[in-house]
């Protein structure tokens, strides 16, 4: 094989250290997985049925590059009704293939070679690579458990350089479930304004918050002019496989993103877009039902983990907790490997979300209650064994 066939830029992307662990999980039967990053609910039937109906009607064509006007209009009305946000359906909204594509487009649309994007860690795995592929430089700012896994204005300020182009925020956050209050966001926003940053705000979990009012970034004073707001249908409506996301932002940026989108993706699937229309039209109750279920599970998982000595911050949203495994003395990969091998429970090693998080694992509670209960039972035995072994080894020394 000719080594020059693959572009340097791609070769240089850091390989995922936990790929082998993922393969292990996928190759094993009867695993209770707390490692899944998508809802355990199936898309509500009303929405699925609309997808089927659109196929029956023969709606199988391309749509306009920006996406079905009907869907953009519905999104515009939804945001206006829910948050009082005013986005023009024609010029300020773009339908994408999931938020993943929207993020890629946003980054490519704003970055010149060598410009920097500030990314608070722990963060979703694609953020760094997407920025690198766009010719930018990801500047990771690790947050700590003591600070609630939130970036504060000081950290942001000191990460800013002449080359800083933007800030990539994600709240509620995958993997921590942590979100920001309005006050905290305002403090961050003052720094963004001062340094003239573009804010890319990934709010895919925004509809799934528990006793925590979600404040979309563009609602902050003046922020709409430099914010690219990203959201989609995957998490709240349990529509991950349909791949529908959207970006809202200033006309010039959305138009730049549309340019890339039209040459690379052309448009999102029409069937999925029609289903998304139905989701906005009638999905409110389903979202509320799922959210209520997640909330119950969150309460259960949060208190269970803390009881087991795996301390975690109570999440504000999404469906993850990020417990510390420090007292086990294991690395996150060792912890995950052993939990899998000895008790057939899968979690995602924290190191996947940033080098500094080898003392943590990500636990998803997008799994039904009886499975969660069984998982907690097994983790309890696992923890007892580990701590016993640790004590034994300590005494030996």
């Amino acid at each position: 094989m000719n080594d020059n066939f693959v572009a340097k830029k791609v070769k240089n992307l850091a390989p995922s250290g936990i790929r082998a662990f993922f393969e292990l999980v996928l190759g094993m039967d009867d695993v209770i997985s707390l490692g899944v990053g998508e809802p355990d609910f199936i898309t509500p039937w009303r929405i699925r049925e609309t997808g089927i109906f659109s196929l029956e009607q023969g709606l199988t064509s391309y749509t306009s590059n920006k996406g079905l006007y009907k869907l953009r209009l519905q999104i515009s009305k939804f945001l206006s009704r829910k948050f009082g946000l005013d986005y023009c359906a024609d010029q300020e909204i773009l339908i994408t293939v999931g938020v993943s594509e929207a993020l890629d487009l946003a980054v490519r649309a704003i970055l010149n070679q060598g410009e920097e994007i500030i990314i608070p860690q722990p963060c979703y795995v694609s953020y760094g690579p997407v920025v690198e592929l766009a010719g930018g430089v990801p500047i990771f700012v690790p947050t700590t458990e003591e600070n609630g896994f939130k970036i504060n204005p000081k950290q942001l300020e000191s990460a800013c350089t002449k080359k800083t182009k933007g800030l990539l925020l994600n709240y509620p956050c995958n993997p921590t479930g942590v979100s920001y209050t309005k006050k905290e966001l305002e403090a961050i926003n003052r720094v963004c304004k001062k340094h003239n940053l573009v804010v890319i705000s990934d709010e895919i979990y925004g509809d799934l918050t528990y006793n925590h009012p979600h404040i979309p970034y563009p609602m902050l004073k003046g922020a709409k002019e430099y914010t690219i707001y990203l959201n989609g249908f995957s998490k709240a409506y349990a529509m991950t496989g349909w791949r529908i996301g959207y970006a809202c932002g200033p006309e010039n940026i959305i138009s730049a993103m549309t340019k890339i989108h039209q040459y690379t993706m052309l448009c999102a699937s029409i069937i999925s877009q029609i289903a998304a229309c139905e989701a906005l039209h009638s999905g409110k109750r389903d979202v509320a039902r799922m959210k209520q279920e997640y909330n119950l599970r969150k309460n259960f998982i949060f208190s269970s983990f803390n009881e087991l000595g795996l301390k975690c911050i109570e999440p504000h949203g999404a469906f993850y907790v990020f417990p510390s495994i420090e007292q086990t003395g294991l690395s996150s990969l060792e912890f995950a490997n052993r939990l899998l091998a000895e008790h057939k429970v899968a979690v995602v090693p924290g190191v996947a979300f940033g080098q500094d998080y080898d003392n943590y694992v990500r636990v998803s509670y997008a799994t039904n209650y009886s499975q969660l209960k069984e998982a907690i039972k097994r983790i309890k035995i696992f923890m007892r064994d580990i701590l016993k072994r640790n004590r034994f080894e300590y005494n030996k020394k």
Partner: protein
Amino acid sequence: MDQILEIMENDSRITVEEIAKLTKQDSKAIKRKITKYEKDGIILGYKTVINKELVQDEEKKVRALIEVNILPQKNLGFDYIAARIYKFEEVTNCYLVSGTYDLLLIVEGKDMQTISNFIAEKLSPMENVRGTVTHFLLKKYKEYGIILKHKEDDKRIAISY
């Protein structure tokens, strides 16, 4: 509806401690509430949902929906007539409905013959019953919000970001 009731409606075997964890409430308070619900007749009992389609036994029962037309009489409301009917143990459900008939019954018996006998001997001869239409149940697809099928496997990939 109280969240406790919602949880118990889905899982009657759940323990008080578990409900406490799920709802972040004090378990003593929950216990008190449940006792009150039982006393007030809000919680009437604890049952198990069984997919009888899959149970192999000789006692498999036949069910029928029966529409009952009633002749209203002075001083005797529907309640009085309904009570005379729902007290038969064959009647598992009894509803007063709007439309072309008045009462909708669900009747259970060990075979079609038993149900026919019940209708012919008990129900139809009643003074206030003007007529009945019987629908025997052939197959159950969904009951009380539960689709009667084997649980489907999780179709997601087992681990993802």
